[in-house]
Every structure is written in structure tokens, then in C-alpha cells.
């Protein structure tokens, strides 16, 4: 599903910043992966490249079999719309739109009719247990509710992967549990899930934990047995 081959990324400037230094990463369909690392390790950059929000310098990136390189803005917007769903730490809901309209937004850019996308948005809100809240605006909702709306929005265009950037960063421990449960339920439907987090408790709930350090992968471990809450990690053979 996701294939990074020797990806390099340098941010130009007075002092060019070499962030990704030959990153190799392979994530298969249905994987449930967390990416950890200190700030400056390159995990945000990696996520941006993953989500076709940013470009890279050398190497190749294939997403769902398509080479993602030197795409026009329009094309990358289309691919984002088609393949990727985002979940952010700060939810990134649009304040002047109610829950339903927020969830329906990706379908608007897909060109789905108003009636149909509202029906679908209601369905996805229902899956998140927020059907009765459809007419509420983001500022009338709790953090957990907002993040569930953001997840519904990420899912509605039926993407192949969900990229979550610190999805629980702004939530308390109880709502964190809730949101992680929702994400793992989504993953069980076969959607590839990549979560960037610095919280070990969050990473623990994923099936595979990747540690980044200084722009390369430091460790890539299967979290086995991930349901049994043991801390045993096994080195994964590089694919």
C-alpha cells in the first residue's frame, strides 16, 4: 500500500535542513502502524509526504501502486481526496459548519450531490455515535466528539489509508481510549491506519511500532501479541 524507497527530504534555507535521510518504509494494506520519535526526528515530514501534502527530493514513493512524484497540485488534491483520510491533533474542523457539513465536505470536492452527501454524512455520524449531534457546531462539542467527527470526515470518502497526526494529543485519557477504540474498529474494516504519536500508551494499541530517529528508521517492531498487553516486541524482518 505504502512503499517508500530511499526517500530524502531537505528543507532549503540559510542552513538547509536534511530531515529524511534515505527512508525505506513499507506498509501493507490493513496494517495498523504507529510512528514514534522525538521532535525533529522527521515524523511530521514523513506524514506530510505520506499524505501527499508535501514533496520529497529523491527516492520513490508509491501509494496504492501509484508513483507519487512531481504531481500537479490539482492531481495531488484529487489523490488525497481519493486515497487519504486525515485526522489531526487539533481536529481541524471548520468552525462555521455544523457536524454534518464538516463530515460531508470531502464529498463536496468529489462532486457528490448535496442530498446524497448529507445522507452519507449522517450515516457516518451514526457510526461514530453522533447522529443526534449532526446540527451542532464544533464549538458546542467536546474534544472526543470533535475527534470522532474528524474521523467520520476522514472516512466518508472511503480512503485506502487514514493518517492520524497525534490524534489523541488534545484529549484526556478517557476520551483517548474512546478514540483509539474507534480507530482500531476502522482498521478492522481493512483500512490502513498510520498514527503519528509520542504517547507510548497510544502506540501500544497499534500492531506495529516504528521509531524514527534523525531521518531514518531506528526500529520497526511488530507489537505481539498486541491484544494481550505484553510488552514483548519482536524485530520485524525488513521487507
Amino acid at each position, binding site marked *: 500500500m505504502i512503499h517508500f524507497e530511499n526517500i530524502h527530504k531537505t528543507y532549503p534555507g540559510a542552513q538547509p535542513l536534511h530531515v529524511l535521510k534515505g527512508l525505506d518504509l513499507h506498509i501493507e494494506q490493513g496494517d495498523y502502524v504507529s510512528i514514534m520519535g522525538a521532535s525533529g526526528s522527521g515524523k*511530521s515530514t514523513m506524514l*506530510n509526504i505520506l*499524505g501527499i*501534502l*508535501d514533496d520529497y527530493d529523491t527516492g520513490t514513493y508509491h501509494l496504492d501502486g501509484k508513483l507519487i512524484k512531481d504531481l500537479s*497540485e*490539482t492531481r495531488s*488534491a*484529487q489523490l*488525497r*481526496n*481519493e486515497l487519504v483520510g*486525515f485526522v*489531526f491533533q*487539533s481536529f*481541524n*474542523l*471548520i468552525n*462555521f*459548519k455544523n457536524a454534518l457539513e464538516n463530515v460531508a*465536505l*470531502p464529498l*463536496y*470536492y*468529489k*462532486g457528490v450531490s*448535496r442530498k446524497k452527501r448529507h445522507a452519507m454524512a449522517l450515516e457516518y455520524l451514526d457510526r461514530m455515535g453522533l447522529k443526534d449531534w449532526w446540527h451542532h457546531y464544533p464549538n458546542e462539542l467536546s474534544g472526543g466528539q470533535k475527534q470522532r467527527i474528524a474521523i467520520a*470526515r476522514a472516512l466518508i*470518502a472511503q480512503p485506502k489509508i487514514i493518517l492520524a497526526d497525534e490524534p489523541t494529543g488534545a484529549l484526556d485519557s478517557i476520551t483517548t481510549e474512546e478514540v483509539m477504540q474507534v480507530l482500531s474498529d476502522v482498521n478492522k474494516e481493512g483500512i490502513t491506519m498510520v498514527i503519528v504519536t509520542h504517547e507510548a500508551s497510544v502506540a501500544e494499541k497499534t500492531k506495529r511500532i516504528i521509531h524514527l530517529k534523525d531521518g531514518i528508521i531506528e526500529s520497526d517492531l511488530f507489537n505481539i501479541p498486541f491484544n494481550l498487553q505484553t510488552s514483548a516486541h519482536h524485530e520485524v524482518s525488513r521487507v
Partner: protein
Amino acid sequence: MRFLEFDTLTEILLTMKQNKLRSFLTGFAVSWGIFMLIILLGSGNGLKNGITSNFSDRATNSMMIWGGRTTMPYKGFKAYRRLQLTNNEVTMLKNHFKEIDLITGEVNRNSMVSYKQESGSYEISGIQPGYNGINTLKINKGRFINDMDLKHERKVIVLPRKVAELLFKGDDPLGKWVKVDGLSFQVVGIDATAERGEGSSCYIPLTTAQKVYHLGIETYRISFTVNGLHSEEANEDFGKQIRAYLGRQLIVHPEDLNSIGLWNQAADYVQTMKIFSTIDLFVLFIGICTLIAGLVGVGNIMVITVKERTREFGIRKSLGATPGTILNSILLESVVVTTLFGYVGMLFGIGILELISMAMGGQGGGGESNMQIFANPTVDLKVVLGATLLLIIAGLIAGYIPARKAVRIKPIEAMRAE
């Protein structure tokens, strides 16, 4: 491209509703600009209509010549000789100058005109059919003097409406006989030209007049209309040609041509129109400047809007909004704001002009003999359509710069902007 879809428009209205005060203030600037433009243009037109209505009794391309007295001796003639125009000059002018369209000789006298017990002293003009056309008469009953009348020196007369009313006291004057200095003339037409100033004439055929008043083939004046002269220079030049030609016919010293009287309405008209086109240009300039002030306002607000919505655009981009859709939505918002509010301003402007028009129409009628300086202050449809087009284009320009900025927003950076 889903440029004008219902969805796109609802999105725009929604964002406009987000900031009602700002939308209103922006819109007001545009409304005011277009309002002022319409009012200014309308007033300019009103002034123009008022002034030109004073020309309208005579065709704007007409000239008149008359004999004067020479001031120099020439070819055996003494100085201070009276120059006499005749029917011959009428024919010769018409034949010689292809620019001349309608032409008439004119003689006039005051005579007693009577019908039964009623009588009065009125001006009688002997003219040729071309007179109606050089002077715009309104023959609302019967007909004007025609060529057959002239040829047969018929005793027919066209009375001004007022004279007819005074003499006939409500009887139908057509076909009746009136006496002019004791001779019977049959009334063939009524001239209802709105009488401005004094003295509207009773018209009889030139040949009849020459016979009745024992003038032979003399004519006092010759009037004609000229085609194809559009500039002041061309008019002046043509006047010189006429004088030179008549100077040869009447044996006038080439230095003394000013003894031939010539009045050129066209030159006056062209000059006046020149003043008006200058005023028009000036008014347009001020109007457009006002409008630009409004549009800069729109552009300004759009810049702020884009800045405030940076994060939102970032989110939209991450959800699959293409640069095209972002560009569209901002441009369209700008166009919708300018067009909507511009239209309101335009309606107000036209409304006020209409009110002025109505108010002035209400008190008209009394000012029959007044010089008008203001009439019918309207803007024509072309100007309104032009202004609308201008608004749309201006809206696009006002929106484009901020829109470009919005398109360049990187989703990641935008979403961090909190």
C-alpha cells in the same frame, strides 16, 4: 468546472454570512461607487439633454446665408452695394454643393390675416418645401407646402396652431379660406411645433409670396442642411467655400466675403457637443475613480478574508480541494459581492434619477419659453450594462491577488496557523 453551481454559491453566501458587517461594509463601498457613477453620468446627460433641447427647433446641421452690404468697391461696383440673393442662388448652391441636402429660400412679411370676424397681424413666410426639415416643424393636421404649390404659385397657407385657434375658435380650419392682406388663401396644414420664444410664422409658397409682395425672384435668406461635416474645421471650411462661391456669383471682392452673411448652426452644435464630451469624460473619470476606491476596498477585504481563512483553506486542501476550486470560490465570492452590491447601488442611482425626472416633468409645461438647462437626466442602457460588466471584471481583479495567495497556501503550514 463547477463554477456556478448552486453548492458553490451556497458556500459563498455562508462565508459572507460569517462576517455580516464586513460583507456589508465592503459591499457599501462598491454600492456607493456605482451609485455615484450613475448619478454623475445621469446629471451629465441631464445637462446635455437640457442644452441640446434648445437646438432642436433647427436641424443641427443647418446653415443660413443672407445678403449684406459690401465694404469694398470691386469690378466697377461701388462699395456699400446691397447684395441680393435670388432663386438663382438657391438653385446654383443646390447644384454646386453635393453636401447640401435640403434647401429653401425665405422671404417674410407681417400681414393682416383674417377669418370671418377674427383677424390679427402675423408673420407670413414664403418658403420652399425643404424648410420643413431644416426647421423641424410638427405638421399635425393636413400637410406642409409642397413642390406643386410652388410650381403653380398656389395660394395655400400653413397656420401655426395658435393662430388657427385664435382665428377659427375651435372650427376645423383645414380647407377653409383665410384672407392675407385681402387675398384668399386656403388652409392646407396646421403646424403644432411647440412654440418657444416669439413669432411662429404662417407659411406660404415662396413663389406665391414673391408674387404677392412684388419681390420678383428675390429671397431674403437661404437656409440649407449639410451632410457629412463632423468637425468644427470641416464646418468652417465649408462656410468659406460657400462664401467664396457666392462671392464669385455676386461679384464680391475676395477680401470682402464677410459681407455675405452666414450663420452655421452646425459649428455651434459641434462646439457645444465638444464641451459636453469633455464634461462626459470628466464625469466618467470621477465616477470611475470613485468606483476604484470601492474596488480597492473589496480587494483589501478579500486579502484580510484570505488571511483569516488560511487555516480553513489548508483544511479544505487536505480534504481534496484543488487549487482551482479554491481560486474559483474566492474569485466568485469577490464577483458576487461586487455585482450584488453594485447592482443595489445601480438601482438606487437609477431610482433617484427617475425621481428627479418625474419631479421635473411634473412642474414642466409652465416653462414654455424658458431656456432649458436640465432635462431628462437618464443614463442609457449601454452605460448600465457597461458598468455591470466593469463591476464583474473589477470584482475578478479585486479577488485575484488574494486568491493567488490562498492557492499557494501549503496545507500543513496553514493548519498549524492557530
